[in-house]
């Protein structure tokens, strides 16, 4: 994998994660107690032996920058290559402006791409599917098939919940060629869902992006892939291991809860390699005399004095005596005061639920409380 670099477009505005992405890009959304979504993508690349990764940020990238900093935790703080955080400015001669689409985002970081010594790119046009893998198989497939572009996809047998409006489905012929790609659900019957991961040679990528930008294009899938579908050899690479879509709130909730299953947790957090994340030096979690905990993930720094069931507690969450949590996701440093009752609730960071309050959502429409709220 010496000849491969990674490029991650860390998000756009089209997500359906309500309050969770109001203040951050999807890549920076907290998940599974101590991780952020981008940890999976960075770790997958690093575990594949890729040590040059560019992350293109988007509007609200403070939260993402804070998290990845110099990339030390992913072993990407290096003298040669390493992690590059690329600001989201498109290349306009007259004044900078945010990119409008993924092709524009790539165009905006062309100087980084040109400087990469590696010739093959693993391009992530979004960060909305969680999985744990290495890319050796993808690389082998890409080389053997002689593809210009290889599109990674998964094919869930049953779509247990509606995907987002912007998810991309593939039409694939018997020889594994991608014949078409569609944005938006229910236009076609295909269950082949693109994972927003593409393998493509650097020079071809830049050539195609150039051609597309010249014609007023802005989106990688629409204006680079679909526009060239008859000219290019586009191959589909099926990913068979578990993967979880988190581009809707329902999906995010389900994916989070899947981590409570020991096997899924092992697959997602250890499968092909460990998922690395930022270290916060929290004290181990602490339980009191009255605490009750069942089928839950609890992170260092938590203090549990109440009752916690089927829930995920992030770092530094405090659950006071008499409080009851069921099917909840409680993000960093939130405080649940005594006798509060929460069911099917996602609390963003640093929320406070006052004594005796009662919040109840449903499984398919969990209640989301935005960062820093007091209820």
């Amino acid at each position, binding site marked *: 994998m010496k000849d491969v670099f990674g490029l991650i477009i860390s998000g756009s505005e089209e997500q359906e994660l309500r309050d969770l992405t109001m203040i951050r890009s999807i890549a920076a959304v907290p998940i599974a107690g101590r991780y952020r979504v981008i940890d999976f993508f960075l770790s997958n690349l690093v575990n594949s032996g890729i040590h040059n990764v560019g992350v293109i940020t988007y509007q609200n990238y403070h939260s993402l920058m804070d998290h990845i900093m110099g990339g030390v935790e992913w072993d990407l703080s290096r003298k040669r290559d390493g992690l590059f955080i690329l600001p989201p400015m498109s290349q306009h001669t007259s004044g900078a402006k945010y990119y409008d689409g993924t092709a524009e985002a790539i165009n905006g970081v062309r100087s980084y791409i040109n400087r990469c010594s590696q010739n093959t790119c693993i391009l992530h046009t979004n960060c909305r599917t969680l999985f744990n893998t290495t890319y050796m198989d993808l690389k082998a497939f890409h080389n053997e098939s002689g593809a210009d572009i290889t599109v990674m996809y998964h094919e869930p047998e049953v779509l247990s919940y509606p995907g987002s409006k912007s998810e991309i489905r593939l039409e694939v012929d018997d020889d594994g060629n991608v014949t078409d790609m569609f944005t938006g659900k229910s236009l076609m019957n295909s269950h082949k869902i693109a994972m927003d991961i593409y393998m493509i040679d650097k020079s071809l990528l830049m050539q195609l992006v150039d051609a597309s930008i010249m014609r007023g294009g802005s989106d990688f899938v629409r204006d680079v892939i679909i526009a060239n579908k008859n000219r290019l050899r586009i191959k589909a690479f099926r990913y068979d291991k578990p993967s979880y879509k988190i581009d809707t709130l329902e999906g995010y909730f389900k994916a989070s809860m899947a981590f*409570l299953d020991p096997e899924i947790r092992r697959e997602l*957090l250890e499968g092909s390699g460990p998922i690395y994340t930022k270290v916060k030096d929290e004290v*181990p979690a602490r339980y009191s005399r009255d605490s009750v905990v069942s089928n839950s993930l609890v992170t260092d720094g938590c203090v549990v004095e109440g009752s916690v069931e089927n829930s995920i507690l992030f770092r530094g969450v405090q659950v006071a005596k008499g409080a009851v949590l069921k099917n909840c996701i409680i993000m960093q440093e939130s405080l649940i005061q005594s006798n509060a009752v929460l069911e099917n609730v996602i609390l963003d960071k640093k929320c406070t639920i006052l004594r005796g309050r009662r919040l109840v959502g449903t499984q398919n429409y969990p209640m989301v409380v935005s960062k820093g709220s007091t209820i």
Partner: protein
Amino acid sequence: MNDVNDTNTLCVPALRKTGRKKETVAMLLAGGQGSRLGALTEKMAKPAVPFGGKYRIIDFALSNCTNSNIDTLGVLTQYQPLELNSYIGNGHPWDLDRINGGVYVLPPYMSAKAGEWYRGTANAIYQNISFIEQFNPEYVVILSGDHIYKMDYSLMIDFHKEKGADATIAVQQVPIEEASRFGIMVTDENQRITAFEEKPPVPTSNKASMGVYVFTWPILRNYLIQDENDPGSSNDFGKNIIPAMLACGNPMYAYTFNDYWKDVGTIESLWEANMDLLSSESTLNLYDANWHIYSRNPGMPPHYASRDANISESMVTEGCEVSGTVTNSILFAGIRVDRNSTIKNSVIMPNTIIGSGSFINYAIVAEDVTIGCDVKFKGSSSSLITVIGPGAVIPDGSVIEDGARISADDAIRLFGEVR
């Protein structure tokens, strides 16, 4: 001090003293075997012994340095240094990977003329005079790597400067009946030390030395050289350097520190210090955002408590999978506690597996231990702590006596090779 000038040229090479000056350099003595910890220190030095769920003993001294703005320190290792060396690494977890300064691991070394082990605490510093001289410091702080405490050394250095001291010794006021176990400082009303008594049968003061010293470097340097030239000396700070300075009338002061401080040199004190973390009355606050205790994190997933778990009054660290009952205990990272097993009043170190139906009480179980199913620790008394050493395998159905100390080799001898 007649020969000071001669020896000076003999043992200290001319060093450039420009550009890297540090006011303070800390030297952390981490070479002790800690033989009273038995199986726990068979393969690692005492400072590397795990403590408090995710720390090692040395994390407290290292974090204290970082939090006290001391960014240059030497860690003197000797006994079983592998674990400690790899743990400290480049010092990044403590923010001690610095361009100017940072943490240096200093093992004994060979020189052109001779090479030898560190013979005593003073000799260990003597052998590293060149290391200290690189930074041309005003003050040197001497620390030991086997105490649990949170202390701002910068305040002690301020005190040292204010008093115009040549040496300042941190003391803790202990109950007078226990004072005969310690090195005791007798002071006047200005905290100036007038006498030093090593483990006095009839103590005249309750100010026990904590083994934390601040010295004015040029003065200490002379005493180290002088001490080295005395063939009768045991080259120890407590036995030789401090009494010699006192005898010569150098100004020496006692700096009183009355917050939590614990020497974890024995199994009982190590167990107690861990249990202190669970006590609501403990004065050792690990949650202080302004005084983080840093450690090399294992980076594991959050811990998982299954439907069968029953956890109370305990600390549980990342990576654990708990299906049994855990009460008044500390679980380090990556431990598996299977169904129907019970852990009470115990400290379980990283990556240990506790099989189903087992019962553990009043014990320290070291890292990488495998406890089979239905193993019973008698565990009837807090004064007889049971210890299972690193890597030991205890087969199904074994019964462990109170106060047993079982290393991995003992386990093979007692129970035969398992699997």
